[in-house]
């Protein structure tokens, strides 16, 4: 019986019983293929339908259509402003909570999830009631509101990033070498949570480029608002514009993911992905 076992293992490993396991062909059961194909069809079929509907002419005309570029440019500016305000507020806050008030982490987690529970329409109506007159119907009210919407994404990504490093020891090491609070934040902590910052950037950009409710109630013609309005005039161009924006966003996000992953791997971090920050590699003793 033992002989049979040995022989079968020799055959499996191409005659080498000590061959690494990775050299074996990994099996991929049929049911996995079925799920993969079903998911692919579910996601890609609407895109294909939209592509067919828009046609080549839709894509040709989209750039010359009035309102397309200004609305896209407004959304991009809003995304940048939202990202900036979110990072300025959330990075020091999250780091401070990690360092000085670790018990408050759960509370912060609960607070930051509120924007998911409260509908955007409720938020914007409340804000419009109390916002200073100069800010009402101004595009610069939107980043301040989007920051609230971005909190759940930003906090979770940054929290995951900070948990992947020993913030306390790194901060103290920097302090003992003469680094002040800002230097420590800028030169020690920020570069080591780059992956988390990129993850939250991706989420914030995607969120802002797709937000409709707040923008329309604030009377701003952002890109999603323009698409909805223009859809009544020319649906083909509207769909082409959506697909174009989707493509541009996707390429942009892929680019920063690739760059961030390359940077992260250089310093021993893992692949950049949403929420998940791979643990650092260590060599041991």
């Amino acid at each position: 019986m033992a002989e049979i076992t040995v022989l079968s293992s020799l055959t499996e490993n191409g005659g080498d019983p000590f061959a690494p396991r990775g050299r074996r062909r990994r099996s991929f059961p049929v049911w996995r293929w079925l799920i993969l194909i079903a998911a692919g069809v579910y996601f890609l079929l609407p895109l294909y339908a939209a592509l067919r509907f828009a046609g080549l002419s839709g894509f040709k005309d989209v750039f010359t259509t009035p309102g397309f570029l200004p609305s896209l440019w407004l959304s991009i500016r809003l995304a940048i402003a939202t990202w900036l305000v979110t990072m300025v507020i959330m990075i020091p806050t999250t780091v401070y909570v990690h360092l000085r008030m670790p018990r408050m982490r759960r509370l912060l987690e609960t607070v930051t999830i509120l924007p998911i529970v409260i509908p955007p329409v409720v938020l914007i109506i409340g804000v419009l009631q109390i916002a200073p007159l100069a800010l009402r119907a101004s595009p610069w009210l939107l980043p301040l509101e989007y920051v609230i919407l971005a909190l759940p994404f930003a906090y979770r990504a940054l929290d995951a990033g900070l948990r992947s490093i020993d913030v306390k020891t790194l901060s103290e090491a920097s302090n003992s070498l003469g680094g002040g609070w800002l230097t420590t934040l800028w030169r020690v902590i920020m570069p080591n949570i780059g992956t988390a910052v990129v993850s939250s950037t991706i989420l914030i950009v995607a969120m802002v480029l797709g937000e409709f409710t707040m923008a329309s109630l604030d009377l701003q013609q952002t890109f999603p608002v323009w698409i909805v309005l223009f859809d009544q005039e020319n649906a083909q161009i509207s769909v082409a514009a959506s697909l174009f924006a989707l493509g541009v966003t996707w390429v942009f996000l892929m680019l920063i993911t690739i760059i961030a992953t390359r940077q992260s791997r250089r310093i021993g971090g893992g692949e950049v992905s949403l929420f998940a920050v791979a643990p650092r590699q260590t060599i041991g003793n």
Partner: protein
Amino acid sequence: MTANAANETTPAALPSTGVAGIAGTPGARGTSVSLLNLTRVFGSTRALDQMSLEIAPGEFVALLGPSGCGKTTALRIVAGFERADSGQVLVDDKDVSRVAANRRDMGMVFQSYSLFPNMNALGNVAFGLKMRKLSAAEVRKRSAELLDMVGLSVQARQFPHQLSGGQQQRVALARALAIEPRVLLLDEPLSALDAKVRLQLREQIRTLQQRLGITTLFVTHDQEEALSMADRVGVMKDGRLEQVADPTELYSRPATAFVAEFVGTMNRIPGELGTGVVTVLGVTVDVRPGGPTSGPVDALVRPENLTVAVAEGGNGIVTNLTFLGSTTRVAVLLSEDTEVSVDVPSTTAAAMTPGTAVQVALPPTPVLIAPRAR
């Protein structure tokens, strides 16, 4: 073993010229440190209780004690990472208790790997120098010299994740020394390393400390590290220093039963207390000052201070032998379920197999006594 672990080397010899502005004769750069009546309370726990300690310029003092005894809290207060509820920290007789950590000018090596992951070894060492606004050329030169001093010039461009644990701690040591700190603080820097690397780094730290003459406070729970590296060792218990002495005195003349039992191996043998004397194993010996004056007591005797010989009808029976190289530790069961350990030359121990009747005796020298353990 990884490739990097295989490269784990201690530099054969330290550079003769040393680092510019750092090297000097032992004691030349020393700074005195005084901890005066430090008290720190966390909730219901008194981490430090009126702790006082004087460290002379250029001295290497180790704080030794079990977990939770307050040694790390004391170090963190000196570093400026914690504030004492009361008491003072003086550096060269100047009160630094309210000075921020980044202005205290103290180099620290941490227990966990603390290298900045986004910087290579050279960048890590250069960090503190850049904070001191040195010119780029000076930063490069001195960082390279420091890395050379810890034997890691070849690894200068490697990032922390590409270095072994021992190499990372050596870079951390170079980084702490690069800023020419007034005091070097070591928070169990060897505890995460394997035995061989720990031994190498231990020797290297001691050599560098002696060479640079830098005042050093070292925290450890490992008595072997403390005794082999420090000029003086402070044994802590419940936030207080039980005894501060040089390693020889600490081992041979412990001030309290706690120190006696925490440092090295100690036998507890029941004794009969008289006036200034105690009768142990049929021998009456003087009692050292300190300890109880009445009630049931145990005499505290080290394994090497007892003698044992094969004797038919002796007072004990050999139960176990542990070979330690030149000596063998013989476990002997005495009457009343008391077991003692006795160190004997391994050549003598050959005659003592388990079950052999032996006579354990106590030399007529003063012993330390403690209330009898239940």
